[in-house]
Every structure is written in structure tokens, then in C-alpha cells.
């Protein structure tokens, strides 16, 4: 077990390094540079006609005129010492900027995932338990619908109805629990839909297994069959979804925080990417990569707890095989996150 965790940690370091390097390369391949963008005023800004010599001085101050390998080595060395540098846009330490944004996004993500779990599991159970055919079909159609609704549109619709038309919830800001409701619902829609989709499919598969038939023959009630026997087995593929869900939450936060004018990692990411604020983007990518790595590790460690078979038979072999898959998913998510 210890060897397994150590191996995973080694892989994690590799993933973080890859994320760091890929972001660095992408940011330098992009046209323009943070200083030019700042002087062009950014969005809603005024053109600056600053003296070219002063502009060059500002570039030099941020080390943007050093040779590329030197900049990379410097940034990597700094990061290894847990110094993420300062934002080019306003000079604030990257750790402070991220630290200020994390609690708000965490609250949003926690509320959204709790809601998504409730909705997702509820929908999946209902869709497999209901006997009326039309209701079953309707419930089964909900997850694909939820996945395909654009988050942006859902958010604006909710604001329009529950804030502008019927003033129940505030449209803006982070203050109080009331301001969390609409954003959490918006973010929960796609996440709950993917949970429901995977869980419903697994439940249907589980319910067709011979052991369910056996249990039924022994006189188990429908609800016992469903909740006690099928659900536990069906939960495993859903658990594997953990990393993807965290990815959805972070990506969704970008849209939700913008629509609902909330502070958080999503908004910070948007402004960092728009300004090509290299240290800030890299700090955010490293954070996202760390979250994915940790989530997937936790998910893998949880598997044996949910599924006793992984503990009893070939306990070491089964996770190793899974590991490779999880690693692929991680790398993929990190790349997608870096380019977004």
C-alpha cells in the first residue's frame, strides 16, 4: 500500500511538471505579451502612448526580455521553492490572489456538488425504479438534457426569473447564503446530469445481474433490491467520475462566477488569461492540476472500501491497472484546463 501511494505521488509530481511546462510554452507561443496588453488598456481600457524606453524598462522589470530557457529555468526554480511570483497586472503576490479567491469557489463548489449528488442520485434511482413507462422515459431523458444545456444560458435564465422578475435572490455578489443559491443550482445542473447518466446506466446493468434475481427470489423487497444490492455495485463507476466532476466544477466556475458577478478562481482565471498574466496563470494551473491529482488518488484509495472484492482478491493488482487509466484522465484534464 505504501509503495502504491509513493508511486502515485511520483506520478503526481510528473503531472504537475508537465502542466507547468505546457502552460509556459502555450503562454509564450501566444501573440503579444502581458506588458503590451496592459498598455493597450485591456478590456474597456485606453491606449497608452507610453515612451518606448519606459515600456522596455517595464518588460525588463518582469524579466520578459530574458532568453526563453532562462525565463523557464527561473520560473521553475522559483516554483520549486513554493514561490509563485507576483501578478504582472497589479504586482500582487500570486499566492495572495489565489488565496483570496479559493474560499468563495470552494463554497460554490461544495454547495453545487452536494446539490448535484442529491439531484443526480435521486434522478438515477427514480429513473430505474419508476414503473410507469412514460415517466421512466421522461426521467431517463433528463440527464442528456442537463448535460447539453449551456451553463451560461441556465444562469442567465435563473437570474432573469428569480432575481429580475421575482426578486427572491440577489443577482450579484458573494454576500450571504442567498447569493449562493442560484450559482450553485446553475453549476449543479451539468454535474448532476453526468452523475445521473452514469449511475442510471450502472443501476440498470446491476439490476439485470443474477444476484439481484437471487435476492428477489429470496423475497427481498423492491426498495431493498434497489438500495441495498444494486446501488452499492452501481456506485463504483460513479465514484470513478470524481475527477471529472471536480474538473466540471472548476470549468463551470469560470462561467458561473462571471454570470453571477462572484469572486473566485474562475473570474481570476479569466482575467489572468485575458491579460496573459503568466505567473498568475501558472499558479492557477498548478492549483488545478494538484486538485485533479489529489482527487483521483482519493478516488482510487476509496475503491477498495466500497468494493470488498478489490480488498479480497488481487488487491494490489486491481488498483495498478486502474491507476494507468486514472493517470490518462488526469493528463487529459490538465491539458484541457491549461488551454481553456
Amino acid at each position, binding site marked *: 500500500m505504501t509503495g502504491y501511494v509513493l508511486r502515485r505521488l511520483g506520478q503526481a509530481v510528473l503531472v504537475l511538471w508537465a502542466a507547468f511546462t505546457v502552460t509556459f510554452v502555450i503562454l509564450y507561443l501566444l501573440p503579444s505579451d502581458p506588458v503590451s496588453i496592459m498598455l493597450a488598456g485591456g*478590456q474597456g481600457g485606453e491606449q497608452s502612448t507610453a515612451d518606448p524606453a*519606459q515600456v522596455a524598462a517595464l518588460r525588463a522589470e518582469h524579466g520578459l526580455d530574458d532568453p526563453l530557457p532562462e525565463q523557464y529555468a527561473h520560473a521553475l526554480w522559483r516554483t520549486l521553492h513554493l514561490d509563485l511570483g507576483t501578478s504582472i497586472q497589479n504586482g500582487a503576490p500570486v499566492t495572495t490572489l489565489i488565496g483570496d479567491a479559493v474560499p468563495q469557489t470552494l463554497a460554490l463548489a461544495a454547495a453545487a456538488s452536494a446539490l448535484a449528488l442529491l439531484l443526480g442520485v435521486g434522478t438515477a434511482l427514480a429513473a430505474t425504479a419508476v414503473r410507469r413507462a412514460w415517466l421512466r422515459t421522461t426521467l431517463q431523458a433528463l440527464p442528456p438534457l442537463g448535460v447539453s444545456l449551456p451553463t451560461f444560458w441556465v444562469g442567465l435564465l435563473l437570474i432573469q426569473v428569480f432575481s429580475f422578475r421575482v426578486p427572491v435572490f440577489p443577482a450579484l455578489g458573494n454576500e450571504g447564503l442567498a447569493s449562493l443559491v442560484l450559482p450553485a443550482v446553475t453549476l449543479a445542473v451539468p454535474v448532476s446530469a453526468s452523475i445521473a447518466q452514469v449511475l442510471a446506466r450502472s443501476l440498470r446493468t446491476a439490476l439485470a445481474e443474477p444476484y439481484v434475481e437471487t435476492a428477489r427470489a429470496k423475497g427481498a423487497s423492491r426498495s431493498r433490491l434497489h438500495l441495498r444490492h444494486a446501488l452499492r455495485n452501481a456506485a463504483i463507476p460513479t465514484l470513478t467520475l470524481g475527477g471529472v466532476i471536480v474538473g466540471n466544477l472548476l470549468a463551470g466556475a469560470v462561467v458561473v462566477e462571471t*454570470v453571477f458577478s462572484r469572486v473566485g478562481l474562475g473570474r481570476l482565471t479569466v482575467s489572468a488569461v485575458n491579460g496573459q498574466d503568466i505567473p498568475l496563470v501558472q499558479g492557477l494551473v498548478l492549483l488545478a492540476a494538484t486538485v485533479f491529482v489529489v482527487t483521483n488518488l482519493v478516488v482510487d484509495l476509496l475503491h477498495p472500501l466500497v468494493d470488498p472484492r478489490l480488498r479480497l482478491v488481487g488487491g494490489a493488482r486491481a488498483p495498478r491497472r486502474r491507476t494507468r487509466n486514472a493517470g490518462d484522465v488526469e493528463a487529459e484534464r490538465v491539458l484541457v484546463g491549461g488551454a481553456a
Partner: protein
Amino acid sequence: MRSSTSRSAAVLVAALATLTACGGGASNAGGAADATPVRGGNLDVAISVDSGCIDPQQVGNNDALNIGRQLVDSLTVQDLDGRIQPWLAQRWEVSPDATTFTFHLRPGVTFSDGTPVDAAAVKANLDGIVALGAKASLGSTYLQGYTGTQTPDAQTAVVTFSRPSAQFLQATSTMSLGLLSVPTATADPATRCTGATLVGSGPFVVGSYVKDDQTVLERRTGYDWAPTGAKHAGEAYLDTITYRVVPEAGVRTGSLRSHQIDATTGIASQDLPQFDGNGFWTQRRANPGIPYNFFPNESRAPFDDVRVRQALSKAIDREQLASLLNPGDEAVTSALSVSTPGAPDDAADLARDLAGANRLLDAAGWTRGADGIREKAGRRLTFTVLFWQPTSAVLELVQQQVREAGIDLQLKQGTTADTAAQQSSGDYDVLFYNLTRSDPDVLRTIFSTDTRNVNQRPRGAVDDLLAEQSSTTDATQRAQLVARASQLLVQEAHSIPLIELSTVIAASDDVHDLQFEGSSRLWIHDAWKQS
């Protein structure tokens, strides 16, 4: 306001569309003079962008400049007619060659930390802005050629330049050269950005700043030095102003309609009719400076040929462009925006003349191809405009207009990063942007071959005119030089102005006396709210 039935119907439809019922109430427009100001309360203002900094000396972003304006006072103030009037400086003298400016400061003014606004503070600020360099993206450009400030006594500051700088007097009225206390002016730029050490002498002080969320300003107690032209001299009427960052245009519109905010300058033009009457008011003012322009690159074909540039300019119907955004708006009339002091009237040279455009292109050897687009020596008359601004409707109309003359305009929407990269590479046919500055010297900073040389052209007669106006202190004389320069820029089509950028205040009827200052930014000291 509700003169025609169709207008009322439009308002009604818009109101139904958003489905927000609001109490009728008294519909006093913002400038209602008969009402007595009420003290207290908070004004919620929505802004669209947070650039991570609220230090007026460092920012170049309109929303941040609006916040900064309430925090700092300036040596002078520019009224809405463009005249420079006393504020922290009671009077001033300018040397005939526009290199020495002597300001006599008003006594008894203090920063909110209690330190006096004196000559030493003026020196610390101007020196500080020069030290900030490009970080003071606007202020540093106003101080090009700055050699120093002498302080013969506590109330007198003598500012000198190595070369004539007539624009400096107007620059002293901007928030970009607004005065901060000496400890602030010498503090770490990054800390200043967060508002933590930002101490000015303005009618409001920083209460709190949370990036991407909100900035709260609090009334400065004891404030008693409002600028010439303000409706009252003493403390601001409002207790607080809360600037809330709302990135989504639709959410700003809905928040104003549902009274979750009181006012904003961030309503998209298509949504503005909703706020005309029925519990709201709007007020519009063109931003002074250079209006939205096509700046042709004259170092290469096809715009190295003056006839092609002129043809492009003549093919544009500016009346149509202006009425597209707001029916009844005036078309752009010169290389300068109409609200810029000394803006001339070159409307005759900017009228649409399609026949003239066709004649010029024929003469230049561009003949119509099969699809109606002109060609010359196997090359099509086509060029691409890269833009990030919310102006696609205007540009698409231009595209249709110039096509009638056989010019193929391609539009490409990008990000500010894309346009910044294009500008610094110099690889473009045409640049598209505007620049807010309430002094005609803005023409020199953009067009002169000594400065940016946006056209990448060789030196010409216009550069002498632009240089001469920058060393002319007599207002009438200077205006004449500016008029000649503007006319040359327009006639030789170095400047192809399209449309004015206007700032529009939209506010609830409860909000009174929220008004523009000389640079079309907000002045909130006089504003008050009906409780």
C-alpha cells in the same frame, strides 16, 4: 421624452420583454434643479471590468479611472466646455514657450491622512509618476519631457519641461495626475493598487477594495474644496459609493431595471431605450479625444496611395453610422471628437461621396472585377480590420458601405492581446481604435512622426502643425493650428474617423445630479439619492 407612439410602444415592448414591473414614481431626470439634495445613503454603481488596481495614477481602464476620480483632486478642473478652471491651484502662469508652469496652491487643503496639499506634495506626485514609468500608463505620457518641480514656497510649485508641452495644463485636470499624499506617492505601486495606502484629498476615501467584487468609497468628512463648477463646495452628499463589478452586460441591464443597482455607464446601446423614462433617466456625452478611427498603414500598398485612402473615407456614410447606435446622434465631424476643446468642423470633408470615391479609385488604376471588388495588377482591393471593441454592428455597416465603391473590408474580431500584438508588430493595413483625452494634443501623440506615427508615414506638413500647437499657449492661436492639422489629417485621409464613442449614464430616477466631468467620466461629489 414620450413624443411618438412608436417610441412608447418600443419602451413598452422592452419592458415586457424583461418582465420587470417597476413603480412609476416621479420621473425627475438626473439634472432636476428644483429638488433639494438629501444627505446620506449609498449609491450602487455597476462597472464591467476590474483591472486589479484602483490607483488613479496607474490605471488606464475607464472603470478604474471613474473610481479614482472620486478619490483625488487635481490642480485644475476642466469644465464641460473644455476650459481649464481653478481647483487645488487657485491660479497659474504658463511661460510663453509652454515649458514652465507655475501653480499657486489653495491654502488649507489636506489629504485624508491630515498632511497638507502643498508644493512638496505636487513635486512628490509628479516625480513619482515619472518614476512609475510605463506603469503610469496615461500619466507618464502627459509628463514626457518633464525635468522637475521647484518649490519656492509651500504654496507655489513650478513645473518645468525640456520641450514645449502645452497639453500639460489640461493634463493637470485629469485623475491620472491627481494628487496623492506624499507617503502614498512614494509607496510600493502594488500596495497602492489595492487601495490600502491610497490617500488623496478627494471627496471620498477608500473604504474597502475586493478584486472582482466591489470597491466601497466613504465620504471624506471635512471636505470643503470642490472644484469650480461643482454645485456645492462642502462634503459629498452620499455616505458611500459601492462600485460593483458586473462583467455580464445583460446582468447589468437587469440589475438596474430591478433596482439592485442605482446607476451604471455599462448599458449596451441596444438596451438603452428601456431606461428612457419609466423610472429611469439616461444622459450621453461623447468622449473627448480621437473618435473611433481607421488608421491606414501608409508604408505599404494599397494605402500608400492617398487616392485609395481618400476613396475609403469618402465611401463611408457617417450619418448612417451615427444613427445606427442611437437615432438622432450626430455624425463625427473631424479628426477630433466633438467634445474635445478646440475641435474643428471638417464635416464637409467627411460627407459621403460615392461618385468621388469611384472616380479616385478609377484614376488610381483599380478596376472592378467580376464580383464588383476592384483589382489592380492581380491584387484585390481588400484589407482586414482586427478589433476587440463591442462595435461589430458599426463595422459591418462600414463593410457594406465601402463595398459599394468596390472595396472589400474583412472584419476579424479578436482579443486585446491580438490587437496589442498587431500594433507592436507594425504588420497591419488598418488599425481601429479610439483614445479618450480632453486635449487636442492627442492628435500629436497618435499621428505625429515624432511620436507613435500610427500611419507609418514619412514626415509632412501636418507634423509641423502638430509640433507648433504643442508649444502654443494662446488658446485661439492653438485652436487655429489644431483646426489646420485636423483638416490636413482628414483631407489626406491619415485619419478616417467613423463614429464617436459616447459614455452613457443610465440611472434610476432616485439618483440626482450624477454628472459628467470634462473627460466624460463621472463626478459623484454632487450626486444624491432620494430616500
